[in-house]
């Protein structure tokens, strides 16, 4: 029936400009989200691992709240509830902010585990060399613990990229929203879904393969 009219090439050639721009938006939101999740992860992960008072407890609450509520609810809170308090954000800001908050929570757990896995002896050696607490963290704990946290944090980044598809619910014109909007008008549903599946799988698979390569390069010398 409808399968007879399946024409992927026609769909792509008619809409490639719009789809490419949408992919650009997906990548932009992903980049902001990943960068933010990295920064949040390092800072709050360190606060947790080193039991910095107040910040450590606040981080624990933040992590539990984000982990135990659906990300869609978080997006709705930022998009529909914040305006009630006079905070009006545009769709792009809501998009990167919500994946950043989500990724940051998971990432601070990743980094906490990584930093805690750094043997106390290494830090002691840092102190013995005259480094202060902060420079010991920068020069000893971060390079070693960061590498230990790498595999799990990269999985979080991949999830951040996948979660950008949820911006469909706020109508931000990233890949999923755009492909579905086009298919709503032209009824080329299967073509649109094919494009979505191919592009997301290409993104995710490329990321996970390059990660395995990076992981091998960055692996701690002793575990090689």
């Amino acid at each position, binding site marked *: 029936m409808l399968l007879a009219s399946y024409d992927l090439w026609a769909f792509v050639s008619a809409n490639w400009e719009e789809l490419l721009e949408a992919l650009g938006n997906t990548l932009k939101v992903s980049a902001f989200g990943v960068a933010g999740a990295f920064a949040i992860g390092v800072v709050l992960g360190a606060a947790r691992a080193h039991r910095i008072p107040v910040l450590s407890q606040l981080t624990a609450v933040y992590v539990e709240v984000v982990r*135990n*509520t659906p990300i869609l609810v*978080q997006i709705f*809170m930022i998009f529909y509830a914040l305006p009630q308090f006079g905070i009006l954000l545009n769709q792009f800001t809501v998009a990167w902010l919500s994946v950043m908050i989500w990724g940051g929570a998971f990432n601070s757990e990743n980094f906490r585990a990584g930093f805690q896995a750094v043997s106390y002896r290494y830090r002691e050696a840092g102190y013995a060399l005259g480094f202060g607490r902060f420079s010991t963290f920068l020069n000893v704990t971060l390079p070693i613990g960061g590498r230990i946290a790498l595999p799990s944090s990269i999985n979080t980044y991949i999830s951040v990229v996948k979660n950008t598809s949820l911006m*469909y619910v706020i109508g931000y014109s990233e890949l999923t929203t755009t492909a579905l909007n086009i298919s709503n008008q032209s009824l080329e549903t*299967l073509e649109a*879904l094919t494009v979505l599946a191919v592009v997301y799988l290409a993104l995710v698979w490329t990321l996970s393969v390059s990660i395995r390569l990076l992981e091998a390069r960055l692996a701690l010398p002793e575990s090689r």
Partner: protein
Amino acid sequence: MPDWVEPVARYILQEGLPGTLRVSAAAVVGSALIGILFGTLMTIRFLPLQALIRLYVEVFRGLPILVTVFIAFFGLPSVSTRLEFDPLTAASIALVLWGSAQVAEATRGAVQSIPREQHEAASALGFGWGGRHSFVILPQALRRLLPPFVSLLVNIIQNSTLAGVIGGLEILEAGERQSERLTAIPPSGIGEIHAAEVFGGVAVLFFLISFPLTRLAAVLEKRLV
């Protein structure tokens, strides 16, 4: 408490919660059955079968779940009209595809972690492949699968909110409908915006369901591994 709260809460709990539970229950059972089967089959040294299941796992773990939901809800009916499902069923199907991929990967690891001697002992007792796996290997592997299963349950419950995106009535969709209704003029609404309270309540509800389960997963992880 203001007057508008009671009908909103009742709608979310009476109309939304059953939808969430229905999708979650179907998705967990389906994911477990298919995932354990595929994961066990993956340990057989037969390349075409391994490659096929590997492809299934990588595809459904790689796709954003929302895209899988759209494939189940919009894509399947365009292939055949017999594959037309209501939103809650379509979401359950998508979650089974995703969840079974997760379970298959975990099961493969768990089955392979059972020592060789267990296989050999079972074979010596006269068990064939099926009997060996269902009576000797899987019961031991299931123990190791318990913590990831609880985490999967939490993930499935949270991702059941995706059913709302295609119009299925679950907790979040119920909250969305109510928060929209409140903004309407009387008599249907009250002409006020209460999105923060409604979605905050939805968040609290999910937290109350998920938090004990994530704690349980952490405890099981420590005890069983």
